């Protein structure tokens, strides 16, 4: 294995550990912090009393 190959391998493994680890930590934190509680509620946040769920809000003008 040449030094270049080694450097490539080290970088790849290093970044997998670094970024994978960061992602795993972030996911753990998100669960503990309750970021996923009441999750589907977020999908409803764009509707309001004037444009409630169940009402279309756009049509061809004049039709």
């Amino acid at each position, binding site marked *: 294995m040449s030094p*270049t190959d080694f*450097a490539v391998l080290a*970088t790849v493994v290093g*970044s997998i550990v670094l*970024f994978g680890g*960061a*992602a795993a930590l*972030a996911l753990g934190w*998100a669960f503990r912090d309750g*970021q996923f509680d009441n999750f589907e509620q*977020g999908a409803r946040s764009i509707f309001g009393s004037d444009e409630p769920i169940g009402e279309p809000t756009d049509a061809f003008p004049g039709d």
Partner: protein
Amino acid sequence: MDRGMVIFVGALLTFSSSWLGLVLYPYWQLQNEQPYAKSPGDDPYPRPLAGQALAGVRVYQANGCLYCHSQQVRSEKFGNWWEDGQMKTGADIKRGWGARRTVSRDYLYDRPTMLGTMRTGPDLANVGARYAEPWQHNHTFNPRAVNSWSVMPSFAFLYAREKVVGGQKAAKALKLGREWTVDPGYRWRPTDRQWEAILAARGTAIRQAHLAGAVARVDPDSPAGRAELLEFWLTTEEEDYQVVPTTAADALVAYLLALRKGETPLPEAKE
């Protein structure tokens, strides 16, 4: 996911991974590349462009040549298709676009490095080794003067058509038939009327010139003979006018002649 900070940090991490991997890492891997000299006394390759060739890079850039011409020769192993039960590869080299594949060292001094994105036209990495200066000028002036099938734009605007003074044409004047030079950028033909007038005025001279090169004499009064005379006359050079390259055309051609990336052997470019 109600925290802006989570999105921010996530966007930062994901993006910086590609920034590190695709940008900074190759930057670091390639930054110490040096020109190659076989033995300590030899001239190193590549060398930075200078003078006209360097100015030619600007002309090449400004006119977007990159959008039809790549500058990279791909290896003998590149490509993957079958014909007659045989796998064939390495079209670039077989087309004569370079003697070997190009490698990162070939581009050490390129600013910008114009590897290319499309091959509407042939590859130019090694074009300097393929054609000489007069061909380059004729082709740049009007590509169809050289290849009838070409769709390359004419760069006649980089040339000046001027009256010959003192009866002597400039050394740099293009040696192209009048069909290409009378109306720069286009292929010119006289109307029937004009041709009659020209024949009436200079018919004898044209016939004599034609006779000098032709195997058989033509009858100037028959339609076939007149047509042949016209074709002949169109390929002769204009007498009173000449087309000469401007500084920009000279620079561009100097750059094209300096493009010799697939020539000098490099130890890492075996194929």
